[in-house]
C-alpha cells in the first residue's frame, strides 16, 4: 500500500484524466455517467484534504512531477488560493452530477452521451490543472485542454445556433490563449524560466530588466485572460455560448470556467509580476475598474431586455464577473476578500439558477419567457429554489450575495471612492429588475400551453438544486467558508505590498 497523502496534488488532475479515458472506452451513456459520478465525487475529498493540509502547514505545498527539480521540471503548487479554487471547482462539478443523467440523456444523442462525459471530465481536468500548476506553459496546455473540450460541450447543443456559438467561442478562445502564450513567451525570453515562482523571484532580484518587453508581456497576458474570463467588452462570445449549450454544459461552465480564468489572471498579476509592477507602474487597476463598472451596468441592461432566460442569466454572469474584477481592481484587503467571496457565492447562486432552468428545459423543452409563463405553480420546488437564488443574486441580506456586495462596498470605501459604492448598489438595482421579471413571469402569469403540462422536476435534479438554494441562504449567515478564506487569500496576495 503506497501512502497516497504526498501524491494528492497529482491525483487531483490525473483521476479525471484517467476517468475521461475510461468513459471514452465504455461508449455507454449510463455507465459513463456512473464512472463520471464516481470520479467527480472523489475529487472534492482530495481538494478538501489538500486544503486542510495547507491550512495545517501554513505554507504552500509543492509537488515535483516525476521528481524533476524546479525550474526545469513542472511543479504543482497548492496554497490557500489554489486550494480554495480546487475545492470550489471540484465541489461544483460533483454537486451537479446527479442532475446530469436525465438532462444529458434527454438532450444528447445516445451514441454521443459517452463522449459528452469524456469531454466533461477532460474539461474538469484542464480547469483543475490550471489551478494547481505552477508552470506558465503547463497552465497554457491545461487552458487549451479545458477550452477544446468546452467547445465540444457547447457544440453538442440541440439548438442550431449552438454550432455557431461554439465556433465563435473557439475563435475567440484561441485568440485569448494565443495572446496569453505570447505573453508567456516574452517572459521566457526575458527571464529564461517558465516556473511562476522562479519568474517572480528573478523579477524581484537585483538585476535590471528592460521595462518595455515586460510591460508588453503583462499587456498580452492581461488581455488574453480578460477574453477568457469575459471581461467587458470582450464578453460577446459568452451569452450565446451559455444560452445554446446543452443545459448541463451551461450549469458546469457558469460556475467554474470564468472563475478559473480570473484565478489565473490574479496569480499572474499578483504573484508573478507583483503588486508593485502591476498596479503602480501600469494602469491595470484603472482599466479593470472602468471595464468592471461598464460590465455591471451594460450587461445588466442587456439582461433586462432578454427574452431567453438562459441568455438573460448569461448577461447577468458578465455583470457579476464585473463585481469580481472590480474587487480585484481595488486591490485592497476588503475588495479582494469580497472578490473571492463572490467567486464562491456567485458560483453557488448561478449554478442553482441554471440548474433550475435546466430542469424547466427538461420538462418543457424551452427557456423562452413566453414558454416559462406560469411554470412556478407547476414546478413549485424548482422555481422556489430559483427565487431564492435570484434573491441572492440581487444581494439581499440573509443571502450569500449580500456578503460579497457588502465587502465590495467596504473595499470601495477603503479605496475612498463614494462613487464606486454608489455604483455597486445602483447596479444591483438593475438585477432587481431582471430577476423580478423572471419571478413575475414564472409565478404570477397564467400558465402557457407548454408550462400547463409540466410536472415537478425529477428528484435527481431537485436534490442538487435545493442543496445550492440552501447554500445560498447558509452562506448568507455563516461566512467562514467564503469571507474568512477570502480574507486569507487577500492577505496572501497583498503580502508583496509593502
Amino acid at each position, binding site marked *: 500500500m503506497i501512502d497516497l497523502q504526498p501524491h494528492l496534488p497529482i491525483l487531483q488532475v490525473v483521476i479525471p484524466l484517467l476517468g475521461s479515458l475510461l468513459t471514452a472506452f465504455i461508449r455507454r451513456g449510463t455507465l459513463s455517467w456512473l464512472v463520471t459520478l464516481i470520479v467527480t465525487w472523489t475529487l472534492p475529498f482530495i481538494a478538501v484534504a489538500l486544503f486542510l493540509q495547507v491550512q495545517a502547514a501554513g505554507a504552500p505545498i509543492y509537488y515535483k512531477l516525476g521528481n524533476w527539480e524546479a525550474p526545469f521540471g513542472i511543479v504543482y503548487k497548492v496554497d490557500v488560493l489554489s486550494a480554495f479554487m480546487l475545492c470550489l471547482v471540484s465541489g461544483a462539478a460533483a454537486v451537479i452530477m446527479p442532475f446530469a443523467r436525465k438532462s444529458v440523456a434527454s438532450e444528447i444523442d445516445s451514441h454521443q452521451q459517452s463522449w459528452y462525459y469524456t469531454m466533461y471530465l477532460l474539461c474538469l481536468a484542464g480547469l483543475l490543472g490550471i489551478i494547481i500548476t505552477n508552470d506558465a506553459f503547463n497552465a497554457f496546455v491545461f487552458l487549451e485542454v479545458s477550452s477544446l473540450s468546452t467547445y465540444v460541450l457547447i457544440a453538442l447543443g440541440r439548438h442550431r445556433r449552438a454550432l455557431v456559438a461554439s465556433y465563435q467561442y473557439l475563435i475567440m478562445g484561441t485568440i485569448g490563449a494565443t495572446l496569453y502564450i505570447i505573453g508567456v513567451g516574452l517572459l521566457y525570453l526575458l527571464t529564461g524560466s517558465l516556473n511562476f515562482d522562479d519568474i517572480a523571484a528573478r523579477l524581484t532580484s537585483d538585476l535590471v530588466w528592460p521595462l518595455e518587453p515586460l510591460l508588453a508581456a503583462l499587456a498580452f497576458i492581461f*488581455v488574453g485572460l480578460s477574453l477568457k474570463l469575459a471581461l467587458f467588452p470582450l464578453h460577446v*462570445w459568452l451569452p450565446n455560448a451559455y444560452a445554446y449549450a446543452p443545459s448541463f454544459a451551461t450549469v458546469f461552465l457558469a460556475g467554474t470556467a470564468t472563475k478559473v480564468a480570473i484565478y489565473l489572471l490574479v496569480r499572474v498579476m499578483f504573484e508573478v509580476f507583483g503588486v508593485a509592477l502591476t498596479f503602480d507602474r501600469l494602469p491595470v487597476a484603472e482599466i479593470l475598474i472602468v471595464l468592471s463598472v461598464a460590465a455591471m451596468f451594460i450587461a445588466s441592461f442587456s439582461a433586462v431586455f432578454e427574452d431567453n432566460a438562459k441568455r438573460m442569466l448569461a448577461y447577468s454572469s458578465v455583470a457579476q464577473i464585473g463585481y469580481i474584477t472590480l474587487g480585484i481592481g481595488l486591490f485592497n484587503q476588503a475588495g479582494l476578500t469580497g472578490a473571492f467571496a463572490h467567486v464562491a457565492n456567485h458560483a453557488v447562486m448561478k449554478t442553482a439558477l441554471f440548474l433550475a432552468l435546466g430542469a424547466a428545459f427538461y420538462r418543457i423543452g424551452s427557456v423562452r419567457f413566453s414558454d416559462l409563463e406560469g411554470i412556478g405553480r407547476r414546478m413549485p420546488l424548482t422555481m422556489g429554489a430559483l427565487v431564492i437564488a435570484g434573491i441572492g443574486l440581487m444581494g439581499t441580506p440573509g443571502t450569500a450575495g449580500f456578503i460579497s456586495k457588502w465587502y465590495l462596498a467596504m473595499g470601495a470605501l477603503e479605496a475612498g471612492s463614494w462613487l464606486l*459604492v454608489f455604483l455597486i*448598489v445602483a447596479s444591483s*438595482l438593475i438585477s432587481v429588475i431582471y430577476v423580478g*421579471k423572471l419571478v413575475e413571469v414564472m409565478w404570477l402569469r397564467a400558465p402557457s400551453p407548454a408550462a400547463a403540462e409540466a410536472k415537478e422536476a425529477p428528484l435527481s435534479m431537485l436534490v442538487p438544486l435545493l442543496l445550492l438554494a440552501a447554500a445560498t441562504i447558509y452562506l448568507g449567515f455563516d461566512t467562514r467558508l467564503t469571507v474568512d478564506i477570502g480574507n486569507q487569500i487577500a492577505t496572501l496576495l497583498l503580502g508583496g505590498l509593502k
Partner: protein
Amino acid sequence: MTTSLIIPPGLVLILGGLLMPLLARVGLRSLVLIVLPVVTLWLVWTPPLGATLTTPFLGFELILVQTSELARVFATVFSLMGFLGGLFALRQQNTLELAAAFVYAGSAISVAMAGDLITVFIFWEVMAIASTVVIWCGGAKARPAGMRYAAIHMLGGALLMAGIAGEIAATGSTAFTAMDTSTVPRMLILAGILINAGAPPLSAWLPDAYPESSWTGMVFLSAFTTKVAVFVLLRGFPGTEILIPIGFVMVFYGIIYAILENDVRRILAYSIVNQVGFMVIAIGIGTEMALNGAAAHAFVHIIYKALLLMATGSVLLATGKRKCTELGGLFRSMPLTAVCCIIGALSISAFPWTSGFIAKSLISGAAAKEHMETVYLLLVVASAGVLLPDIKVPWFVFFHKDSGLRPKDPPWNMGLAMIILSIFCVGIGVFPAALYGMLPYPVDYEPYTPDHIVYQLQLLLFGALAFYLTLGWLKQTNTITLDVDWLWRRPGPAIAAFLDRFAGYTWEWFVDLVTATAMRLYRLVHSHHGPQGIFGRTWPTGTMAFWTTVMLGAVVIMSYFQ
C-alpha cells in the same frame, strides 16, 4: 433573566409565515394566523427593559433584540396588527399573501426591536421583498405596480446600505443611536428612510401601489412600511429640522390629492401620506413631548387606518367596487361596517374621546410649547383640512345617494376584527393613560381640558362646514370630466377649484414630462441593449477579434505612456 432566554419576537412571525404554505396543507392556517401574533406580543413584553440578544455576523455583533419603551410601543402595535389582520383575513383564499404578510409583519417587528444598523438594514430589505409579494397578490393590475414599488424600495435600500456602510467605515461602530446629518453617509441613511416614509419627491409610490393590493393586503401594507420608517426616524434622527418642511409637504400633498381623488382606497392611501407627515413634523420638532406625540400618533394611526381599510375592504369584497361614484347608501345593508367606518373616520379626524384626539394634541401641544408659531398655525390649518378627505370616505360609501347596492355585512371574523379596532379607537380616546404610560418619555399632558375640547370641536365644526359647502364640488369631482366653468361661478369652492386646475395642469405637465423622458430613456437603452442593440445582439466574430486587438493596443499604449 439571562439573555439566553430571549427569543426574537419578529422571527416567530417570519418563521410562521415561511412555514404557512406547508401548515395550510394540514389545515393549521387559522391556528397560525391567530396564535403566532399573540405569542409574538408575549415575547415583546417578557424581556425586561434594556435586555439584549446578540449574535456575531460578518465580524460585527448584531443586536437582534434591544428592548426599550419606544421599541415596545411599535412592536406591540405591529403584533396587534398581525393578530387583527390575520383574524380579518381568515377567509382570504390566497395563502401566499398571508404568508408574505406574516414575514412582512415579523420583519417590521424585528426592525423595531433591532439594536444596531446592520440588523435594521437586513430586516428592512426582507420587509421590502415580503411587502412586494403582498402587493403582487392583488391581481393583474397589481403586477406592474408591484414592480414599481419594488424598484423604489430597492433604491431606498441601496441608499440605506451605502449610508450604513459609510457610517460604519467612518465611525467604526454599528450602534443605532441618534444621529445628526453632518456627514454624507448619514444623509444617505436619512434619504433611504424617507423614501420608505413616503416623503417627497417619491411619495407617489404609496398611492400607486397600495390600492392595487387585495382587500386584505392593504390592511397589512398600511400598518408597517411607513410606520417602521417613522420608528427609525424617531430613533435615529430626532430633532432634525429639515424633517419639519418635509413633513408639511407630505401633509398638504396628502390632503390635496385625497380631496381630488374618487377612488376610496386611493383616498386612504393619500391619507396615509398626510398622517405620516404629522409624525415626521413631530420628529422634526424633536422635544420629548413631540417625540411622544409621534410615537402615539403612529400607534393610533395604525389602528384607525386599519379599521378604515377593513371597512372599505369589506365593501370591496362584497361589491367589487372602490369608486365613490359607484358606491353610496350602503349603511342600510351594512350597518356594522358603516358604524365602524364612522368611528375610524372620527378617530382620524381627532374627534374628542377618540384615539386621534389624544395623540395629535401631543404634537400641536409640543409645537405650541416650543413657541414655533408658524409650525403651530400650519398644523391647525392641516388639522382642519385633513377633515375633508376623512369624512369623504364614510359619507360617499355609506350615505349620500343610494347606489342601489345591498351587500351584506361581512362574516363574523371580519366583523370581530373591526369591532376590536373600534373598541381600541374609543378606548384609547377615553382612557389615554394606558397609551401615555407606554410612551418613551413621561407624559405631563392632560388632553381633556375644557378649552382644548372646545377648540378641537371648533376646528371640527369648521371642517364639517367646509365639507358641507364643498359637497357639491366634491361630488362633481366624482364624475370623470370636471365642469370647470360651473366651478368658477361658486365662490366657496373657487380656491379649491383653482388648486385643482393648477394641480391638475402641473401634474399633467409633470407626468407628461416624466413619461416622455422615461420613454426616451427606455428607447435609448433598448436601442443599445435590446436584442437588436449593439450590446444585445451577437457580434460577428471579426468584430470581436477587432475589439480584442483594440483593447490590446490600448493597454500597451497606456502602459508605455504611464
